Each structure stands twice: as structure tokens, then as C-alpha cells.
């Protein structure tokens, strides 16, 4: 609409603008009230004051009028100098003849009116005039005329305006200062709520998190509503987990059975298998194991979601773990003409770990390594660092850039666009989780075009101590 939009303003600014504007409006209203009051009442006050002067002058001049003493009357009128707002004055005898007169500025030569028919006051042409009868002992002895300017009123109003502007400026700055202080009580709790919401939104799908509700104001309401929303989300997520769990349980038995039959056939239990049949069976087993792995991953995820994953930790040899890992993949590697190198498997390193979970993690790593490598080799290297056993899986494949590495161990990849890439989504998330619950870890280093190195770490089994730390 325009470059200035109130609705786009940050709350901090809005509060300040509102505070300052309302302060100024209140101030202007108060000043306006005084201003109007002054305009309405000041002439009346002036008139009363003028009437008082006229009364005093009249009373003082009765003797001069009675004795026809012009000089004394003149001297008496001259004392009006004490009041600079009186422009002119004139004393008349009872026949209406000028008796004595006074002019503030002689140069101005203001005219004295003829005697008016009756006493009264009038305001005209920026001046205020009054006629007064002078009585002595119940008998009229003369008249008095006084004229005053309205200069004083203009001065007063100018002062008012100046004071208003000054106070306005001062209160503008004070209200700005106060608003900038007070706005924090609104914006800071809001910022906290927003930050926490973003934490949750950017986080690893941990929707058990809740906002702390502080206070019963609108910000507290926001937090409460958000928590209620998270509760709903949790319910939906639980339903999804349950569904995945039920479906996977139903699927895994038939898939495992099919694989078992194939494995038995390949083992020659049902008789001699010729090479073409073996080729078919090998293919079927690759597909069957792929399906089994997918079902296992889904089950693992739903277990992680429900927080029911535990580790069954025993001493296990690194060699056995590696042997169990590679047996599913020797066939595929043969087909892709990849070389599998094993290093350090004969060194007798014992791990203190959950064998099945380490095997599953390693299978994930090997599976990925094979997928990302079209030629060259995959190496599994066993070693140790201090009291930690280390198994590394190195490939000579395409490698990964920084961005891919950053989101590698999250499950967002499965939820996002990359979900369609075959399989590789959930495995690494599950693998890292499996390592973390047995005091281990899974990390990666990679270089685009050169290959990746996944490093799996678990505690070593210490024979002397009996158990690992």
C-alpha cells in the first residue's frame, strides 16, 4: 500500500507510537480546555477590574467635581499611569462637559466620546470601554469614562501557546522513554514464546516439548493454545506410530519366512540348486532382505517415537559383528564389482555393546556405502581409541557436501523431498540413535567426489575390569 504500514511495524514500535500519540492527544486536549476557558472568562475579569478602577476614580473625584477643582482632578487621573493597560480616561461634570482627561500615549490622541445616555460597558475594536455615573450624597455630580486595551490578553494567550509547546516536547520525550521501558514487559515474554516455538519447530520432531505458561495475560493464552495444539499433534503422531507398528508386525513375519525359505534353498537343504536357479534365488533374497530392512526401520522408528528402545549390552567381538554385517552384502558387491576390504578384524578387539544394534547400524553404513559407490572399494576398518572400539566404513564414492552432511542424521530427510530416494532415509537416524543409547556415537567425514568415512564408536570390553566403564 505505502512505505509506511502500521500493521507491519514491530510491536515495540507500535507500543511506543501508541503511547506517545495518546500522551500528546491528552496534553493537547487539556491545553485547549485552558485556552478556551481563558478566552471566555478573561474579558469578564478585565471588565470587573476596570469597573473597580472606575469606582475608585469616581469616588476620589467627587470632591474635585463638587468644588470645581480641575487641577486635583487632573492629578488624580494621572495616577492611572500605575495601570499600563488603561489607554485613556475622561471625567465629565454633571452637565456632560469634559472636566479632566488622561492619555497613556499622548501621541495616540484618543478621542473621548460625548457623554452617553446611560452608564455601561462595551468591548469593540480590541479595546474595552466603560461609562460610570459618579454620585455624591445620592446626587449625580458627573461621569467617568475609562478605556483599556486587550494587549494583556494577547500576551497571556501567547504565553499559553509557548508553555503548551514546551510541555508537549517534554512529555513527548518522557512518554517515549517510558514506552521504550515498558514495552519490554509485552515484547520480551512474546519473544520468549516465539523463540521456544521456533526451537520446537526446528527441532527433531520432539513434540512432547511444551511451552512454560507464565502469567494469565494474552501471552500466557498463546502459550496455552500452542501447548493444546502440540497435544493434538502428539495424538496424531501416536496414532501414526501405532499404525506403523501394527502394519510392520503383520508384514515382518511373512517377509522373514520367505527369506528363510530362500536361504534354506540356497543352502542346498532342498537339494541341488543349479546356477540359473541360484541367480534367481540370490535376486529374491536381495529384494526380500531389502523389504525386511525397511520393515525393521519402520518398527525402530515407531519404537524410538514411543521411547521404548533399550540396549542389551554384552561382550561381543568386533570380528563377529563385522562378519554378521557383511554377509548380506557380499552378493551385491560382487554384482557391482566392488572390492570389500577388511582391516583390523583379526586383532581380537572386544566390544561391550548390543550386538544386534551395532550390526544393524553397520549394515546401514555398508548399505549406503555400496549405494554411493559405483567403482572402487569399500573398506571396513576395526580399531580402538583409548577405551573405545572404533569401526569405520570408508567408500570411494560420490561423497557429500556440507548441506547434506548437516541433515544426515536427522529424520527430516525422510519427511522431506529426499524421501523418494531408495531407503537411505531412516537408517542413519536409527543407527546414530542406537549408538547413542549404548554410550557410543556415529559420526561422518566426507569429501565430494572422493568418498565418505562413517565412524562408529562403542565402549570396548575390558577383560581385567570385568565390565566396561
Amino acid at each position, binding site marked *: 500500500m505505502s512505505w509506511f504500514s502500521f500493521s507491519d511495524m514491530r510491536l515495540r514500535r507500535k507500543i511506543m507510537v501508541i503511547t506517545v500519540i495518546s500522551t500528546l492527544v491528552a496534553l493537547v486536549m487539556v491545553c485547549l480546555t485552558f485556552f478556551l476557558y481563558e478566552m471566555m472568562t478573561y474579558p469578564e475579569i478585565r471588565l470587573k477590574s476596570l469597573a473597580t478602577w472606575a469606582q475608585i476614580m469616581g469616588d476620589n473625584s467627587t470632591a474635585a467635581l463638587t468644588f470645581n477643582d480641575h487641577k486635583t482632578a487632573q492629578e488624580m487621573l494621572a495616577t492611572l499611569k500605575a495601570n499600563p493597560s488603561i489607554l485613556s480616561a475622561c471625567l465629565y461634570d454633571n452637565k456632560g462637559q469634559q472636566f479632566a482627561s488622561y492619555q497613556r500615549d499622548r501621541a495616540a490622541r484618543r478621542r473621548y466620546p460625548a457623554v452617553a445616555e446611560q452608564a455601561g460597558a462595551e468591548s469593540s475594536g480590541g479595546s474595552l470601554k466603560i461609562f460610570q455615573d459618579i454620585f455624591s450624597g445620592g446626587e449625580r455630580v458627573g461621569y467617568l469614562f475609562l478605556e483599556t486595551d486587550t494587549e494583556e490578553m494577547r500576551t497571556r494567550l501567547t504565553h499559553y501557546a509557548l508553555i503548551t509547546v514546551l510541555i508537549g516536547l517534554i512529555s513527548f520525550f518522557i512518554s517515549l522513554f517510558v514506552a521504550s521501558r515498558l514495552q519490554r514487559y509485552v515484547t520480551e515474554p512474546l519473544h520468549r514464546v516465539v523463540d521456544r516455538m521456533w526451537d520446537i519447530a526446528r527441532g527433531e520432531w520432539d513434540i512432547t516439548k511444551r511451552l512454560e505458561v507464565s502469567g494469565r495475560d494474552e501471552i500466557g493464552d498463546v502459550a496455552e493454545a500452542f501447548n493444546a495444539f502440540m497435544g493434538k499433534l502428539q495424538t496424531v503422531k501416536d496414532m501414526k506410530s501405532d499404525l506403523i507398528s501394527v502394519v510392520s508386525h503383520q508384514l*515382518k513375519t511373512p517377509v522373514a519366512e520367505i527369506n528363510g*525359505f530362500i536361504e534354506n534353498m540356497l543352502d542346498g537343504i532342498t537339494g541341488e540348486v543349479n546356477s540359473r536357479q541360484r541367480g534367481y534365488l540370490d535376486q529374491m533374497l536381495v529384494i526380500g532382505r531389502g523389504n525386511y530392512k525397511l520393515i525393521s526401520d519402520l518398527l525402530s522408528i515407531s519404537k524410538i517415537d514411543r521411547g521404548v528402545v*533399550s540396549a542389551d549390552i554384552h561382550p561381543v567381538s568386533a570380528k563377529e559383528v563385522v562378519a554378521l554385517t557383511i554377509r548380506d552384502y557380499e552378493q551385491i558387491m560382487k554384482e557391482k564389482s566392488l572390492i570389500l576390504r577388511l582391516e583390523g578384524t583379526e586383532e581380537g578387539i572386544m566390544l561391550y555393546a548390543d550386538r544386534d544394534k551395532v550390526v544393524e547400524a553397520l549394515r546401514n553404513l555398508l548399505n549406503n556405502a555400496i549405494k554411493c559407490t559405483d567403482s572402487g572399494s569399500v573398506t571396513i576398518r576395526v580399531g580402538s581409541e583409548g577405551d573405545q572400539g572404533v569401526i569405520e566404513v570408508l567408500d570411494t564414492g560420490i561423497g557429500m557436501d556440507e548441506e547434506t552432511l548437516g541433515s544426515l542424521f536427522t529424520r527430516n530427510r525422510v519427511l522431506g523431498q529426499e524421501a523418494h530416494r531408495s531407503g537411505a532415509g531412516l537408517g542413519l537416524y536409527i543407527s546414530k540413535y542406537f549408538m547413542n543409547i549404548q554410550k557410543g556415537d556415529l559420526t561422518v567425514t566426507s569429501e565430494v567426489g572422493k568418498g565418505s568415512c562413517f565412524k562408529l564408536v562403542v565402549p570396548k570390553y575390558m577383560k581385567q575390569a570385568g565390565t566396561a566403564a
Partner: protein
Amino acid sequence: MESKEVILLVEDQEGFRRIYQDVLNADGYEVLTAMDGEEGWETAKQKKPDLILLDLGLPKMDGFEVLRRIREDPETKKIPVIIFSVIGEQKDIQKALEMGANDYTVKGFYTPREILGKIKSVLTQADLKKD
């Protein structure tokens, strides 16, 4: 080995029963099978096999109950039991091990041949204890 060692396979899935019966037979074991918990317990009590492969999710009487009876009966309590589980039953396995199962294996995660290796090692340990 003078006589064939006898293994009781308690498993309600027909596929798994056939797979393991075949692989054990091929390796020279005599295999008894039971399709549910009750039949498993009856067979164990009557035939006193050298080893029992026990599934946990069974009809009529679940694997835990079968295991409890085997371990409580003086005639069967020495028989080694391997829990024959499917993936995703970690808690159940833990419970079964605490109830006196000797070991466990995961159908599908390991090949029948790998599971055969485990059966052999449990049998060897049981033989050593006997002597």
C-alpha cells in the same frame, strides 16, 4: 554322537516351523514341533528334548507361561531354552531371559544357518554343565 539330539520347536507360524525343521534335520537333529503353547508344554514334559526353541507369541498358552512351567517342573527345568523371537520384542526378550531362558535369537534378522550356530553353542554349553 551316539544318538540324535532332540530339539523341540514351539512355533505357531507354519513357515518358520518348516524352515527350521528342515535346517535342523539337514544338520542331523531330530525335530519335534508344537503349534501352540499347550502342545509345546505337553511335548516338553513327555519327551524331555535336549533343547527347546520357544516362540513367545503363541496361541492357547503364551511363551512366557510355557517357560514358567518348564522352569518350575523339576523334570524339565534343566532343558536349555532359546527364545525364538521376531524383531522388535526387546522388552519381551529381556523378561524371558530373567525368567530363565538361556539365550535368544531373532528370526529373519539372522539366517537359519546363523541360528543353527547359536543352537549348537547353547547345546555345547549344556553338555559341559552336564558332565
